Structure formats: C-alpha cells, structure tokens
C-alpha cells in the first residue's frame, strides 16, 4: 500500500532557494552523525533535495556544519 505523500517543508514555506549560509535550517536535514537526511524520511521534493544537498556540502566546507558530528580529532 502506498504511504500518503509527505509535503515538502521548503515548498510549504515558499522557499525558492535553499541558502547554504542558513546553518540552522540545514541542521534540520542532517542526521545525528552529520549525514544528509534522505528525502524519503524528510519529505523534501526532488528539486529542493538537490539544492539542499549542494547547500549542505557548501556549509560543510565553510565549517558552518560539521562533516561528522561527534567526531574528536
């Protein structure tokens, strides 16, 4: 049986572009370890998931969010 479609939080908020500088929003879409949350769990639509994944990778490079959470060098 098909599960009911989750609605995309970005589309609901009428977000046109996922900003890589907004680390608080991006933080909602990464797991406890810092991995990108799959869209099947978060309900993000394909277009925003593509933007989100780029945004998270940029934010990681700029040390706004960690590559691995809970890792001690």
């Amino acid at each position, binding site marked *: 049986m098909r599960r009911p479609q989750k609605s995309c939080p970005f*589309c609901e908020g009428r977000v*046109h*572009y996922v*900003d*890589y*500088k907004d680390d608080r929003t991006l933080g909602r879409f990464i797991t406890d370890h810092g991995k990108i949350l799959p869209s099947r769990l978060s309900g993000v*639509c*394909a*277009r925003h998931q593509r933007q989100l994944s780029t945004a998270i990778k*940029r934010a*990681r*490079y*700029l*040390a*706004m*969010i*960690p*590559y691995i959470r809970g*890792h001690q*060098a």
Partner: protein
Amino acid sequence: MTRRYEAVYIFDSTLEDAAINEKIARFHALLQSTDEISIDHWGRRQLAYKIGPRDTGYYAIARFHASPTTLPEYERAMKLDDGVVRYLITLFEHEVGAPPMTEEEMARAARQDDDDDED
C-alpha cells in the same frame, strides 16, 4: 558581461578588524567592479570543526557584480594570503543563488514548479 557573485571569506580570527578590512578592500580592488560591493560582517564565529590549529574564524560575506575574466586574479590573491583560512565564491543569480525576485519572476517560477514537480 558581468555576473553577480557572492563570496564568503573566513579570516584568521587573530587578525585585527582593520587588517581584515584592508585585505577585503585589496581583494575587491582586483575585481574592477564599478558597482558598490555590499559586505556583510558576521564577525568571529566558532568553526564546526578545527581547521589546522584554529577553532574560530572571522566570517565576511560580499556580493558583487564582476566580469568572469577578473576572477582568476582575485582568487589567486586570496589563495596566496595567509590570513584567509577559507573562501567560497558562488554565483548569485536566478535559481543558482538567492537574489531578491520580483513578483513577476515569482509567479513564473511558481508556474514552472507546477509543471515539472510530478514526484
């Protein structure tokens, strides 16, 4: 032809504010941009992970119009500068970046979304 870019700089947090402003001014002089460059200073922030010995960095964001041909020289200056821990230059146009959109553009984008968002 000029394009619109956004650059994020992370400077060494031990630098004085005056030194940081002087460096930013030096980089921006290389762009030969005629328009005014908007700079947003976030100031010193904790880094999410250590970069070398550094725990904190000074963040500054600049938005500017520049010709793509001036970018290599500008990037080279930043690479050579020891005070710059990291930098990121991204396009800031249409769907690529997030410039303010007019009502008309918003309406057009919304129509497109309806067309090709079938999943």
